[in-house]
């Protein structure tokens, strides 16, 4: 239908929004803008890029939100216009579509039969009226809204099928709107966040990805165990976090999060995103007391625990354990309390030989860094207990169901739009010179080749039907 058939087209605003040219232009603009978004680093990746820009250029970039194009106001505005365009187009076309959907053409139309190929006409013995009755009986079973009419001794039949195909594109358009609504619902009522939990640790808050706000979960999540499996060649095979969900100290549920298999709890989904290690609060130390025999004692220590020195001069404790102290690797702080003496504390590095190589004499120069600062002892870290932490991505998106419903509808709409058509079929039963002639003709909303095939098929099955009825077809 052309736009001029509709009275609303007098309104220029309406005309602007219901033009297909606008659709095409918008689609191309959206494509171009999206291309720009893939060429300029977006969001977190944009920092390094932005630093190399001149201040003037940077201002322009920031003004147009070019580092976060897909969430920029103007990008959403474009999508909004597209949605509006889609709605107005759909409304605008409705009267025409409805007409084609509901129109019931006269059975005795002549035009479909003009220029009909010979093979679509079959000749059969018998009175036209009797033949017409047989044909109609057969025809009614195959087509809907069948109408018949007789004018003189010529009998006409009309039938159709697939008239709902006209509405296929409405399903597609509706599906796009539903997906957009789903996306809006998700961004209004959902969140994207992350949280790192050490094995054995728990949390009731997660950090919003966008601005690191703390979001309360309403329950507590504990990571009982994190495991990573490797293939023989060393590439990772599986990451897995065993999680427990608790409230008021009571265990509500235990679940595991694996890559591709997130854990769901109370409408919030936890995805296995990454992992790492942190030092724990235990260590195995070797303590050398030069004058004793044997000189070396091995002890297991826990952070904060007070332990007697092997020589009995007093006690010591591990006051702190750091993953990476002064950028020289793992270290722990030893605090010695000699009986009746001055407290002394100093750091012990795990990789002391390595540090000695890099900064010769460093540990001897600063007593705070000297593992032999309390004489006659030397402390050596044999093993630091490390623990995994799991990095979970946390998301709540109440719009997802709408998005999936939209996707379903879209695919269904495509099948109807592209592969179904509204086919109108006419049959004419007319007396010929010797026989009665049965002709079939039709029109279709699309796929003319398919209609041709259908007409040939119909003609052939009519032939068979009439033969079965005892009318030998020649």
């Amino acid at each position, binding site marked *: 239908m052309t736009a001029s058939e509709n009275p609303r087209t007098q309104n220029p605003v309406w005309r602007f929004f219901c033009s297909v040219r606008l659709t095409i232009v918008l*689609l191309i603009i959206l*494509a171009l803008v999206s291309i720009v978004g893939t060429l300029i680093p977006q969001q977190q990746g944009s920092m390094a890029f932005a630093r190399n820009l001149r201040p003037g250029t940077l201002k322009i970039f920031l003004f147009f939100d070019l580092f976060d194009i897909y969430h920029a106001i103007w990008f959403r505005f474009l999508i909004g216009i597209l949605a509006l365009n889609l709605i107005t187009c759909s409304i605008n076309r409705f009267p025409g579509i409805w007409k084609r959907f509901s129109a019931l053409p006269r059975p005795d139309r002549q035009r479909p039969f003009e220029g009909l190929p010979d093979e679509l006409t079959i000749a059969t013995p018998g009175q036209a009226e009797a033949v017409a009755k047989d044909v109609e009986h057969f025809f009614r079973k195959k087509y809907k809204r069948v109408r018949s009419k007789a004018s003189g001794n010529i009998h006409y039949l009309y039938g159709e099928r697939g008239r709902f195909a006209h509405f296929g594109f409405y399903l597609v358009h509706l599906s796009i709107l539903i997906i957009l609504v789903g996306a809006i619902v998700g961004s209004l009522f959902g969140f*994207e966040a992350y949280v790192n939990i050490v094995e054995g640790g728990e949390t009731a808050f997660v950090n919003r990805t966008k601005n690191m706000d703390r979001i309360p979960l309403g329950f507590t999540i504990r990571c009982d165990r994190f495991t990573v499996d490797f293939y023989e060649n060393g590439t990772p095979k599986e990451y897995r976090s065993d999680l427990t969900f608790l409230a008021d100290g009571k265990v509500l549920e235990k679940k595991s999060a694996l890559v591709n298999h997130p854990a769901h709890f109370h409408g919030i989904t936890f*995805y296995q995103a990454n992992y790492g290690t942190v030092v724990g609060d235990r260590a195995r130390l070797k303590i050398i007391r030069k004058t004793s025999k044997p000189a070396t004692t091995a002890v297991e220590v826990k952070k904060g625990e007070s332990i007697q020195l092997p020589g009995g001069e007093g006690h010591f404790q591990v006051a702190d354990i750091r993953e990476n102290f002064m950028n020289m690797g793992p270290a722990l702080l030893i605090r010695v309390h000699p009986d009746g003496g001055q407290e002394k504390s100093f750091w012990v590095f795990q990789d002391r030989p390595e540090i000695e190589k890099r900064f010769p004499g460093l540990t001897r120069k600063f007593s705070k860094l000297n593992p032999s600062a309390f004489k006659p002892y030397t402390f050596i870290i044999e093993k630091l207990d490390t623990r995994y932490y799991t990095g979970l991505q946390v998301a709540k998106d109440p719009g997802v169901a709408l998005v999936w419903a939209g996707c379903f509808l879209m695919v269904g709409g495509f099948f109807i739009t592209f592969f179904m058509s509204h086919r109108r079929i006419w049959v004419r039963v007319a007396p010929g010179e010797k026989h009665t002639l049965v002709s079939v003709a039709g029109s279709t909303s699309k796929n003319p080749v398919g209609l041709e095939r259908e007409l040939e098929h119909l003609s052939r099955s009519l032939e068979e039907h009439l033969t079965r009825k005892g009318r030998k077809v020649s």
Partner: protein
Amino acid sequence: MNSLILSYITFVYFAAFFFYLLMMVMGKGVFGKIATTICVLGLAGHIFAIVLRWIESYDLGIGHAPFSNLYESLIFFSFTIILLYLIVEWRTKNRTLGTFVTPLASLAMAYASFSPNISSRIQPLVPALKSNWLITHVITCFFGYAAFGLSFGLGLMYLLKLLDHDGKSGIFLRLIPGKAILDELNYQMVVIGFLMLTLGIITGSVWAHSAWGSYWSWDPKETWSLITWFIYAAVLHSRLVHGWRGKKIAILCMIGFSCVLFTYFGVNYLAGLHSYGKS
């Protein structure tokens, strides 16, 4: 073993191209029949090698469908092109499209087999790819790409046919089917491609929802597939509603296919989550 067979298939498809071309230049139908035979044999070998590769991965103890990296995707891409082309050839009883499509398949195979940057080794699946969606996602996407590849070939034929004035030009142009047929066939390819691309994007986002925590993250590959979708949506609207035919559609389809190629290869040069297809 499978990669050796696959590297030979490059030449089989090239031979098919050669005979299709010979048919077009000499105007002898017999070359076309030879070309089709070669193509069918090549496809049989191709399927055999893919199945063999699948079995071999299980023998290595890391069994998975052979759709997991750039090598395997190129092999599958080439397979979908030839399969779809042979179906079209069978349905339309016309072989001229073969001249324009077999080189695409042969090039994809050659790139997979002979590029020094692409490893043909069977590798274990990284955790992110271990999903039932892998097979559906890859199959839908690549049938979409293949249909757009055929549409590109048809667009090219249409533009060449424009040079043919009243059948006075050489046999090559005269053998190309009429413009209306090309246009109609091109439309059908775009419809198939668009449907498959849509399914590919949907399966991809369902998968991303469980693997990456979001059904849409504007990752460059996602974005480029959406760009491609926009372009073909514009093609369909301009044809179905705006009534465009012929040359404009042919040119739009060629732009569309260049977007497909960028979605497939170009995106590897941009940072993103979809890094499996890089090598």
